[in-house]
């Protein structure tokens, strides 16, 4: 080989190495603070929320369930904030932390972890723009997500974030927030003001006025003219090659928002108008800035109530009021105030910061309750669940499902510090899985039942098949090799998949299966040694060799009806399969 070629090859290899190392050293993993500082102490706010909840339970004559154990709460938090179960690596560290306030401290760690803004920004992006693809050239969902992610990481006040989304100018590639506007762009027709009006009210005020686009709201006090008046605030917004801007004039004529009524040839001018509290609008700035000032006005309780209901929904999987964006008008009488008012007020008083709201909900009694009760009364249990006197059972959303499967397939935490291949693998698997499992689309908090194709995918799909393998790098394989005894092997599988310890019955059952496999393997080995094929199957020292484990655990070399005993690796793989398919795995509990 010519020296130049050698140098070139070395350069390419070096470059690749450099890239892999660079990609791997993203940032140091977050640690939980050793102690909570005074400003991190939110006990007073938490106690006000709890006071409301306890009063409610007492009024309803309900005795709330006992507290859930810390591991269960940790799983809930990890699912809500990172979209996966915690890794075995994290669980081990968590269990080694024995202080009484570990949940609070770990919650701060989780909020500081890069996985939080990355995961949560996707949730918010769906609220803001749905999952429609939009016009590719001028709608960049990734930029919107990155922008939201930065706001979440910096814990920017929610009212500022909302203002930038509604009123922001700029190019959709450099100003991610501008994509909230460009998502409503319709080819050849320009911006759809109605869509923007509907989205604004749903996302930021938690109410639905979309039907008032064509007629007055059937049950609520929204009028068609309210809808048109709100849409008119977007009437001067334009998407230009220079980005989103508001224009006063076009072709030397002032721009007005017009509505063409059915059967009419020409439109009528609709001035911008809000349905209530006109005094909240600032008179300065563009129409969109005026709208933003009204939406985020400190006295507009809808704004705080809406985000409180949304975050409650994302934490529990079920919003306080369902559907999440169909709230009634707030009560005027202070005696009638509900939990959203309490949460909203605390949120507002603490700078409208989402980290605070998340912590407030996570530390409330409702979030800490167990989903288990020592009673068999179905009707009572349903009532408790409705009133949040027991943690509600909520099915994992599709992205939480594959996120958890992927995490349970690895002992180490999959995050920004994982190597490039692992992260790429997770990304491609996730989109592939969502295609088959069905994505939750815009309305992620809509309670849906599981389907047979989903069960089939979990049972027989390639994801389960790949992630339950017992090879040297997989979780099942590493747990099998390094767990010491059978009891800890079973325990580690349960922790990795379900973030809980096995119950005595479960432990006994699976340990017995492993021991049976152990005996059977010795027997098979003995028979094999007798007929001279033993070395092919086992290590020389008589312990099961890795090669045996990996080949015997394969699924495709099985023949129907054979009654050969399962190998140890097969039992571990089957245990992993059981855990992936158990209700404990696919439900938040």
């Amino acid at each position: 080989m010519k020296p130049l070629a050698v140098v070139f090859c070395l350069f390419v290899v070096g470059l690749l190495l450099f890239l892999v190392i660079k990609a791997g050293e993203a940032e140091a993993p977050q640690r939980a603070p050793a102690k909570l500082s005074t400003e991190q102490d939110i006990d007073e706010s938490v106690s006000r929320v709890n006071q409301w909840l306890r009063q409610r339970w007492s009024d309803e004559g309900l005795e709330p369930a006992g507290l859930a154990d810390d591991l269960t709460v940790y799983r809930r938090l990890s699912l809500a904030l990172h979209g996966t179960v915690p890794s075995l690596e994290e669980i081990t560290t968590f269990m080694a932390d024995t202080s009484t306030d570990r949940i609070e401290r770990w919650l701060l760690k989780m909020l500081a972890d890069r996985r939080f803004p990355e995961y949560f920004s996707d949730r918010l992006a769906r609220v803001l723009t749905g999952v429609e693809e939009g016009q590719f050239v001028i709608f960049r969902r990734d930029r919107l997500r990155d922008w939201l992610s930065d706001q979440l990481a910096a814990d920017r006040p929610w009212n500022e974030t909302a203002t930038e989304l509604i009123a922001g100018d700029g190019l959709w590639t450099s100003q991610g927030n501008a994509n909230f506007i460009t998502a409503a762009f319709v080819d050849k027709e320009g911006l759809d003001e109605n869509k923007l009006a509907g989205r604004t009210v749903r996302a930021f005020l938690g109410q639905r006025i979309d039907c008032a686009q064509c007629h007055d709201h059937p049950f609520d006090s929204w009028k068609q003219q309210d809808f048109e008046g709100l849409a008119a605030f977007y009437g001067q917004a334009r998407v230009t090659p220079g980005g989103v801007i508001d224009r006063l004039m076009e072709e030397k004529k002032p721009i007005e928002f017009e509505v063409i009524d059915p059967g009419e040839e020409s439109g009528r001018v609709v001035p911008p108008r809000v349905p209530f509290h006109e005094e909240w609008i600032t008179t300065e700035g563009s129409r969109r800035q005026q709208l933003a000032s009204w939406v985020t006005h400190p006295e507009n309780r809808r704004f705080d109530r809406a985000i409180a209901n949304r975050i409650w929904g994302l934490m529990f999987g079920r919003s306080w009021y369902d559907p999440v964006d169909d709230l009634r008008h707030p009560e005027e009488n202070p005696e009638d105030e509900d939990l959203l008012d309490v949460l909203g007020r605390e949120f507002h008083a603490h700078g409208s910061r989402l980290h605070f709201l998340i912590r407030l909900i996570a530390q409330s009694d409702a979030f800490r309750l167990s989903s288990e009760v020592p009673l068999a009364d179905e009707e009572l249990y349903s009532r408790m669940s409705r009133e949040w006197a027991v943690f509600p059972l909520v099915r994992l959303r599709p992205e939480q499902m594959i996120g958890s499967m992927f995490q349970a397939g690895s002992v180490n935490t999959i995050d920004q510090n994982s190597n490039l291949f692992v992260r790429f693998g997770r990304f491609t698997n996730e989109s592939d899985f969502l295609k088959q499992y069905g994505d939750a689309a815009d309305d992620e908090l809509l309670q849906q039942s599981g389907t047979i194709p989903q069960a089939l995918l979990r049972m027989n799909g390639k994801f389960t098949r790949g992630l339950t393998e017992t090879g040297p790098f997989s979780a099942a394989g590493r747990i099998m090799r390094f767990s010491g005894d059978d009891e800890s092997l079973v325990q580690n599988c349960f922790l990795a998949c379900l973030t809980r310890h096995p119950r005595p019955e479960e432990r006994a059952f699976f340990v017995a299966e492993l021991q049976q496999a152990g005996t059977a393997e010795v027997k098979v080995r003995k028979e094999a040694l007798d007929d001279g094929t033993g070395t092919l199957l086992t290590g020389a020292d008589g312990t099961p060799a890795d090669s045996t484990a990996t080949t015997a655990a394969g699924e495709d070399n099985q023949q129907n009806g054979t009654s050969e005993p399962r190998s140890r690796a097969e039992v571990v793989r089957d245990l992993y399969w059981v855990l992936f398919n158990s209700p404990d795995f696919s439900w938040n509990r």
Partner: protein
Amino acid sequence: MFRPDTRTVRRRGALGMMAALGLSVSLPGMSARAAARRKEERPRSLITLWMNGGQSQLETWDPHPDTPSGGQVKSIPTSQPGLQISEFLPQMAEQMHKVTLIRSLTSLEGDHARGAAYVKTGYRLEPTLVYPALGAIAAHQLPDPKVEIPQHVALGADNFFPRGGYLGNEWDAFRVFDPGRSLTNLRAGVSDERLQQRVKGLDLVSRQFAKARPTADRDTQHAETVRRALKMMSSEQLKAFELDDEPSVVTRAYGDTRFGRGCLVARRLVEVGVRAIEVSLNGFDTHVNNHEGQKTQAEILDPAFSTLLTELQDRDLLDSTIVLCITEFGRTPRINPAKGRDHWPHWFSCVVAGGGFRSGLVVGETPADIGEDGSDRDKPKPKPADPITVPQLYATILQAMGISWDDEIITPIGRPMRFADAAPETRLLTEGRAAEVIS
């Protein structure tokens, strides 16, 4: 090729597993093929042939040769006296006396996603409620407990597969991407015995889950879903998805294409009693080189559609099966500079056959020549004569299937909704069927 080979769960094995799951097998056993019941007494089925991307009416069902909008296509006479269709559909030309042809179907949406949503559900896409596809309504309204495989099936890879919408995602179509070739996720990949051991472990863990959560089984339906999935894995009815026992002369007649195999599988599914099947054919979005593009796709559609109609009739299934060939919108009368046609929701064609729809009926007429004006977006569009809207068509199909189109259902957001947003056009139905509907 898909075979229920040694790796597929055997029925006996599955029953054992279900017993292990602590579940009584309460569903009735398999009956003789539902196909034994022919003609009128059979509950109705619906096969939708979905022309994905926007089939051009001008190159298929509504040609206007030798006019400025007609393009290069020629028309040919059909078995229905006086009716001419495109030369690209010679086999269908011989079937036209059996069908209702609507040339004046109208839509409100000219975008693929919005158009597909509208034509699949009869309702415009809206942000606060997902409407169910026509097939989902049919499956939901006419359940058959003897059918162990899904009642709503989509064959082929359609971007906008039919959903259950507000009826719940359990009414989403069961998707088979490569019909007749492979079914995904139906093989356990391990021996029956090992699967039984897995299910035994799963049963133990599931019981622990439900132990201190009194309504867990009812709320999660987890065990029930697993039970039904296992039952499906072992069902003899899965054979309806296979084509191994079809004579090659039959498979050849449908055409050796994904769509052709899909149509043949659709016929087999109807025989088993599946309520609604969609077979999709992609490739109609001909913004460039429309003539050639539509021709290639019509050549795939022609043998499959005509053989399907012939076979259904030969097997006495056409009276109880509605076959609907439809697309999300039509294509512009004007031919663009790239020799393509763009989206045109103002009128387009669909064909409905069987299940009580009239034979040899042609509804609507479209302007032969609308010149340049027709594609000027600022000018009002001319209208077809005798227009039929998608909701009207769907109300008619629902009525023909014996489903009350105006039944109201309370949606998850508390809004009562009717299955169709217009009254049926009973003139599309045979006199007998129409009388039955009216009574």
